[in-house]
């Protein structure tokens, strides 16, 4: 019969020899093993100070990008919400008024745009569905909150600040290279 594993061991019920019954050699051997581990490199990382490197395709918290002139790209078409398998995205569309041209790129924009971070499965389908290159997933992780309501991210948390643009090029260029 073909073995399923190479590490199988034949179990036997034979009487132990005197050396085995004394038990001390086995104990000393075991202590040698643990002592070796005492000096080995540790597997854990001092987390907040040291972080393990993320994969270049890591999908973290979303960002709503602005264009080069600082206008919001999102036009509230709702394709991301349709694409979302977890139904985590909701939005309310509104028409751009006169004098708001420097705020919104298209004539329609999202007055309310919410992503529930607890529902989101970070699949990245919203990013692929977006025709306006407005929504992207970044390499940031969702910070800890103390109540569930705080995990529903509105535009205040999602839209990138004008003075602190979010760089999404790492993941995007990796994807382009693959394609």
């Amino acid at each position, binding site marked *: 019969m073909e073995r399923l594993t190479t590490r199988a061991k034949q179990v036997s019920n034979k009487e132990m020899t005197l050396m085995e019954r004394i038990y001390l050699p086995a104990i000393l051997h075991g*202590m040698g093993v643990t002592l070796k581990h*005492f000096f080995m490199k540790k597997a854990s990382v001092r987390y907040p100070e040291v972080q393990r490197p993320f994969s270049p395709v890591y999908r973290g918290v979303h960002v709503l990008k602005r264009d080069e002139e600082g206008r919001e790209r999102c036009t509230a078409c709702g394709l991301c919400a349709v694409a979302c398998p977890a139904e985590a995205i909701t939005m309310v569309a509104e028409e751009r008024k006169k004098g708001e041209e420097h705020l919104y790129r298209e004539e329609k924009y999202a007055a309310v745009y919410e992503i529930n971070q607890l529902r989101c499965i970070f699949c990245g389908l919203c990013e692929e569905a977006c025709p306006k290159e407005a929504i992207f997933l970044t390499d940031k992780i969702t910070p800890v909150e103390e109540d569930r309501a705080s995990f529903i991210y509105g535009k205040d948390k999602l839209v990138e600040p004008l003075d602190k643009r979010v760089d999404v090029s790492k993941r995007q260029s990796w994807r382009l290279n693959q394609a």
Partner: protein
Amino acid sequence: MDQALLIEKIILVLTMLGITLLIATYSTYAERKVAAFLQDRLGPDRAGPFGLLQPLADAGKMFFKEELIPAASEKWLFIMGPGIAMFTACMTGAAIPWGTELHIFGYTLNMQIADIDIGILYIIGFVSMGVYGIMIGGWASNNKYSLYGAIRASSQMISYELAMGLSIIAVVMMSGSLSLKEIAAQQSGMNWNVWYQPLGFVIFFTCALAECNRAPFDLPECETELIGGYHVEYSSMKLGFYLFAEYINMFISSAVIATLYFGGYNFPFQDMISSPALLGWLQFIALFAKIFFFIFVFMWIRWTLPRFRYDQLMHLGWKSLIPLAILNMVITAAVVIARNNGF
């Protein structure tokens, strides 16, 4: 007794008690670090540099926890239990010679609190009284699980005390004295008892593990079978006392092992040091180095070996260790008699 001696002894008692408590406190930290390192982890490192303030944080947590005394418990005994455990653990240090003498500010300090001529019996006596702390605590909780834990603990400790006593007898016969000071003094240099009593040492060490309820003999504590053990009903600092007493016992056991088998305060080539002041300090340091080593071995064993089953524990104690200890005693007796008669 003149006043100077009284003051000297009080200072020594308080110092040794302080050192005992300090070492026990940091044993909890060392235990967690050793456990972590043996398992390829880093261990506590958040409180202070390298997590050195962790024991203080643990103690603070213990103090602020709610203190519960179960309504059905025997209240007086319930409070007595941890007290006895702590008291017996702290008392044993008195008979151990922590060094010969220290010279501080031109004053010579004898490093043994009480040179009792039956020192080793005194220690064995107090160690066996330690079982009352556990038994009373388990009984007074009025909880079947804590009672089971207490019964396990007491039968284990009583069983292993026999083999422990028998292995000590061999040492006593060799040195011809029950005084720990005398036993330590006879092992000067490298003339340690462990070279003559290797079997006795192994038996004594195994029994010391069992007496301290340390792994692989930590059956009195068992989450899956007993929820916790004899201290199920205890909380806050009463629980802290029980856990702390275990670490003090570990320290004292290491000190007794070092004194009986590993030359106590003696270290190799100590005759080459002419200055008595320096020698005193070095002997003190040598003893504590040995003690720390044995505390480490206690922890090392705990994180290496799986625990015994209860019947295996009894089997080992009664059917292996006691016969071996008797054999060891008989052989030692024969050799001692042969030597005294000039063979």
